[in-house]
């Protein structure tokens, strides 16, 4: 059956009021928007396609970091990258943005993979935070979160209360929100931020994987979002340890509903190479098909 036919009326268009818009170092911003229809339906990996400003009509796709279905808001994190996001940053509390969402194929968790390893880099952190928020509600899962950034993290890190096997000495910095959720996390950067691992997310992931017993390692599935080179390295690591791995990709996007085929990525399928649309065939893909 035509995939689109089974997905009629799944993307909502909402005039969303800005409830909070906070600047962080490194040109990063967190944005809270009142969008109850989208908040009620979004899943980890979903994104919104939003207007940034009346003078710049093309929308921008931005991953959802958190939702509160009761209060009807969605939280986003973005970094000023070009003219569109620079205009987005000029909006204030009370302004409205037009949102389409939730869009995209979400991350899928598997009950037999009880140890999800969530790896987020830069503005790829939000979908990992959303994953953690969902996983904490199911006691079957024991996730571990690794976040990396080359600009200051958009939150004040804190020393983790959780012992994590395999962590090098002094690697204690964690994301407070994830700590509150009783999920261990660690931070990495090559910028020398205190308590962070001095290196790459994949270094820390390797330390952790090596510390696990074989039967524990078989329960690991990797979920990741971040810059392309980081995802490539994560996919290599997954292959090396023979672990399943899902990655969330980004690409310039026009329609975000599958109509224009502007946002494709080349993937390997059983029938050979194919171009898949990041917006509706993804943004979450099997890392083995992409890399």
């Amino acid at each position: 059956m035509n995939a689109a036919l089974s997905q009629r009326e799944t993307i909502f268009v909402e005039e969303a009021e800005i409830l909070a818009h906070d600047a962080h170092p490194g040109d990063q911003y967190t944005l809270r928007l009142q969008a109850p229809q989208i908040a009620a339906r979004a899943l980890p990996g979903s994104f919104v396609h939003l207007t940034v400003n009346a003078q710049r009509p093309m929308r921008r796709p931005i991953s959802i970091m958190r939702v509160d279905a009761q209060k009807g808001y969605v939280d986003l994190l973005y970094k000023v990258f070009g003219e569109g996001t620079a205009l987005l940053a000029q909006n204030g509390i009370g302004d409205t943005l037009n949102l389409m969402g939730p869009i995209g194929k979400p991350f899928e968790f598997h009950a037999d993979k009880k140890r999800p390893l969530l790896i987020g880099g830069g503005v790829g952190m939000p979908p990992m935070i959303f994953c953690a928020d969902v996983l904490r509600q199911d006691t079957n899962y024991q996730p571990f979160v690794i976040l990396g950034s080359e600009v200051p993290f958009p939150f004040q890190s804190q020393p983790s209360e959780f012992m994590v096997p395999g962590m090098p000495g002094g690697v204690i910095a964690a994301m407070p929100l994830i700590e509150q959720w009783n999920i261990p996390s660690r931070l990495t950067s090559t910028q020398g931020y205190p308590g962070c691992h001095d290196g790459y997310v994949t270094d820390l992931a390797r330390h952790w994987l090596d510390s696990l017993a074989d039967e524990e390692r078989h329960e690991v599935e990797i979920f990741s979002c971040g810059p392309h080179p980081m995802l490539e390295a994560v996919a290599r690591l997954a292959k090396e340890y023979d672990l399943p791995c899902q990655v969330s990709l980004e690409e310039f996007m026009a329609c975000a509903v599958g109509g224009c085929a502007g946002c494709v990525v080349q993937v390997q399928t059983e029938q050979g190479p194919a171009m898949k649309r990041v917006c509706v065939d993804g943004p979450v893909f099997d890392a083995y098909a992409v890399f």
Partner: protein
Amino acid sequence: MNHDELELLRTDFCGMDFQTPLVLLSGCVGFGEEYTRVVGYSNRDVGAVCLKGTTLEPRLGNPPHRIFETPMGMLNAIGLQNPGSRQVVDTILPELDFAETRFIANLSGSTLEEYVEVARIFDDSPIDAMEINISCPNVKEGGVTFGNDPEMSARVVAACRAVTDKPLITKLSPNQTDIADNARRCIEAGTDGFAVINTLMGMAVDIESRSPVIGNNQGGLSGPAIKPIALLKVHQVYQVAREHGIPIIGQGGVNSAEDAIEFLIAGASAVGVGTALFYDPLICAKINAGIVAYMNRHGLANVAQITGSLRLNDAGGSCS
């Protein structure tokens, strides 16, 4: 809108009953179903939907990046990614709801023979009409290399005409010297209608890498930036087409009811909407309402009364 207001929008195009004069443009709306994902969107808001450009065999299309925003517009170079005409006819068309709107195939190819074969395959299908895409700027062979040569354009149209009685709409390129001459040749070759215009060739450069942003290096420019060019081209083609009763879908940067009405006045019988859907997926209902309001304000009973009602300034020159 009430029933009577909706009836104001109903119009004929190449013998097809269009419930509104709006046509969703090829390449913007996939194979007809994609936008129905959006709550509030309906194919019933448009007279027809042009399906994505279809070639004989499947094509992967161009490498990323395929799109890039430019001032009041965007570049695209998709490269005719499609599953091939057989697949479209066998698996996609059966799932389209032809009660919702008219569906128009977009015939694309690298050779004359390929256009003909694709036309033959769609002729034996429920498709309502076919648009001959001799203006795609993003493929190395066929496309605009045919469309910029009036002789070759006419040969493609004549060859497709020979294998189908379904309405044939020829999509003309703005990237040519004399669009009116090309239109004349296509009418002689048997086209039933025109789509004016396709995108204009353009480029954007990343100043850090010093490479074109678009993977294909060049792309087609669409959006409000090209509207004035499209309007003039519609007016020019209309000068030729009206004598033969050949209708035009006017397209290029339509983003409001006012834009659509401009195209109708310039000579279009229907109006294409493409890039504007990316801005607002619910725009068609708004454009329809704006056209109805205009018609009521001017006491017009049907859209055809607007077509070609342009009053040129006496002091101005001819627009050729």
